[in-house]
């Protein structure tokens, strides 16, 4: 085999190897940037073709139809854990019930000795207003210092405290 062919193959192989690394990093990048589209997408048109945009964009539209637009402006789109071991975790709100507790099948699994296994749940009522309900927990669920006794509507940014974990709803 001629020297030239081998040199071309040698450099070509290195180029291909690096191309794979770059493609892999691009895939990671698209994973990361998908987030931003998700966050902004809720304010734009719901029928956007992007996979990522539609996830968050669809529910507000759905909710808006039910509540006649009243809730649309102030509807929270995500639940954020602001204190505790899961700080920084966000869950997109899409009309589903979110369960909190130490049970392994909870939406948010709390690792906290002061939390009950099925501690509380957060769900939207018919008007799209998000409600927090304590599920008979031992140590109680607090909304802004007051202990919950009945299902209570959650104001935007109102801190919900369960043991050492604090969560809030944000736009």
């Amino acid at each position, binding site marked *: *085999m001629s020297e030239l*062919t*081998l*040199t071309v*193959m*040698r*450099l*070509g*192989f*290195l180029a*291909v*190897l*690096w191309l*794979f*690394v770059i*493609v*892999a*990093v691009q*895939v*990671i990048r*698209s*994973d*990361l*940037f*998908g*987030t931003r*589209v*998700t*966050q902004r997408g809720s304010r734009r048109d719901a029928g956007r073709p992007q*996979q*990522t945009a*539609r*996830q*968050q964009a*669809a*529910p507000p539209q*759905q909710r808006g139809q039910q509540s006649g637009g009243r809730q649309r402006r102030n509807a929270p789109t*995500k639940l954020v854990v602001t204190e505790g071991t*899961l700080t920084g*975790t*966000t*869950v*997109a*709100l*899409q*009309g*589903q*019930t*979110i*369960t909190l507790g130490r049970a*392994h099948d909870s*939406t948010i*699994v709390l*690792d906290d*000795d002061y939390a009950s296994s099925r501690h509380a*749940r957060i769900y939207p009522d018919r008007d799209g207003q998000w409600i927090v*309900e304590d*599920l*008979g927990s031992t140590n109680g669920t607090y909304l802004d210092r007051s202990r919950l*006794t009945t299902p209570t509507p959650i104001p935007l940014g109102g801190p919900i405290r369960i043991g050492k974990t604090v969560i809030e709803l944000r736009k």
Partner: protein
Amino acid sequence: MSSTSNTSTHHTSTIGSIGAPSRRNTELALLVFAVAIPVFAYANVGLAINDQVPPGLLSYGCGLGLLAGVGHLAVRKFAPYADPLLLPLATLLNGLGLVAIWRLDQSKLLQSLPNYVTAAPRQLLYTAMGIGLFIVVLIFLKDHRVLQRYTYISMFCALILLLLPLVPGLGANIYGAKIWIRVPGLGSLQPGEFAKIILAVFFAGYLMVKRDALALASRRFMGLYLPRGRDLGPILVVWGISILILVFETDLGTSLLFFGMFVIMLYVATERTSWIVFGLLMSAAGAVGVASFEPHVQQRVQAWLDPMREYTLSQQGVFGHSEQSMQALWAFGSGGTLGSGLGQGHSELIRFAANSDFILATFGEELGLAGIMAILLLYGLIVERGVRTALAARDPFGKLLAVGLSGAFALQVFVVAGGVMGLIPLTGMTMPFLAYGGSSVIANWALIGILIRISDTARRPAPSPASNPDAEMTQVVRP
């Protein structure tokens, strides 16, 4: 694919930090790429050594492609939301390893060695077994949280696996390190590779329960949180065990791997930097202490400090010395920036273990610094995806397990690459996926399987309890 996920998103939630739910087509495209690169390398080696495209190219390429395809289909079926990068990265590394092993099989020098075996077909078999175990993990491990139930059982299993090489008659002393066992009819096995995964399960389960005590009960001193004396218990026990491994199995790598993995997981569980400081101090003290009386460890340290002296002694025929470290360094040096080209180096001069412990030297010589950097980046990407999975996981056990597994993987790469490149003393561990060796390939495929399972659970839109009408009707009775 997208239409099905479109209809299902109405009643599901996703963790906001992660975008598209399923990236299976991306994975498939990357996988095709990851199989094409080793095939290219294989053709390149054949052209360089024999002046012709190797006759086995088609069967070899199809073999690797088939294995990767089966793995991909299993992921598509059993873990549809898994991370798209883990499988292609592992496949590429495994394929490159196969090419390098086949390339060393062609060397006349290695063929003339007394205990020569044709390694490439065996490695392909091990790869098939590894992907088989990978699929078994995906099928039977529906949810990684199940492993949490076996916290203490896995501790016993791991300890037994670690102690097996010391059982007389079963353990085998291969070139000074006692980390193998001989199973009659099957060949030799490195139980430490499997113990790594099982121990990660134990550490994750244990630390999840105990981390509050380890994190909160501490005093602040000079900017560090000092743990109470009695909280030092677990770290002291793990340290003691890793020192025992170092003394009785005389393998620095295994010892470093287990202790390092525990310290990484302890740090992640408690967020206390002091554990890392303690861990570094303790492992340094332990290594220096053992090296002061254990001759095998001493010799490894001397070979690390002065490889040239070791080489000269070996050339003079003094028993117990090896020219390998120096040969490996020369291999890296002669590779330069762009390497000598696949099949055109002389890494076979390293002789035995050229295709296992020292396989990185072959890449260093034939692909040069540019190639080695790419390969280390591939390892880095696997670790990054593991840590990313840990970040996305919604349960503490899954977080700790993913961090532990990717930390162990990273440590193993560091220990082996550092040993071959002369950064730390050489150990008897193997480069994951690249090196020839059944236990290593099979165990690491299982590790990737568990990571894929955790990432699938983490990225999967959560099944909605609201869709179940019973959940809405349940009322909580209050006094």
